[in-house]
């Protein structure tokens, strides 16, 4: 699923590890989402949305 997570992360000045720490997931999970190897669960998508104060649809491209 295409997403803007890497853009938002770099704008915030965070490394993947720092973002992972803030979200309570592994750095590998962050890398997998950014490289579209993993579609986040609804829970994780909402946590990302809350952290960056953006709507889920503004971060993840709706594929449907």
């Amino acid at each position, binding site marked *: 699923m295409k997403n803007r997570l890497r853009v938002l992360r770099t704008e915030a000045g965070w490394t993947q*590890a720092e973002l*992972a*720490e803030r979200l*309570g*997931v*592994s*750095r*590998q*999970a962050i890398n*997998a*989402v950014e490289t579209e*190897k*993993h*579609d*986040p*669960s609804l829970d*994780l998508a909402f946590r990302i949305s809350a952290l960056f104060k953006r709507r889920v649809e503004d971060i993840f491209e709706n594929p449907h």
Partner: protein
Amino acid sequence: MPTHVASARATSPGRSYAVRTVAFMSAYVLVHVAAIAGLFDSILGKPAGWAVAALAALLVAGQIWATLRLMAQSDEYVRVIVAKCFILAAGATMALWTAWGFGETYAAAPHIPGWLFYPIFWGIYALVSPFVRTSN
């Protein structure tokens, strides 16, 4: 063994898994070392031999428990990756074992001890792990 584990926190899932794996695998290897050293020779062919079998089985079950704990304590991505690797390795091992079993029966293939299934499974797990990167 899985290397893709959650980032560090107090007793990270990866660290817990590593400690448990070292414990169960070391004990499993010790059983083999004891067997090779002849410590079980006096119970060969006797009902007491089942005690050795039960011990080995408990250690295998312990490692499976450690893997399930890793999955329970890890994030969604690591959980899926470990599960996929486990299924692929189990499937490949079962396919190989089935083929060899039929080979023993119908093609005069030499007999392989059943307990080899376990180390071969983890060997195949190590081979497939680098190629499992997506949760899809």
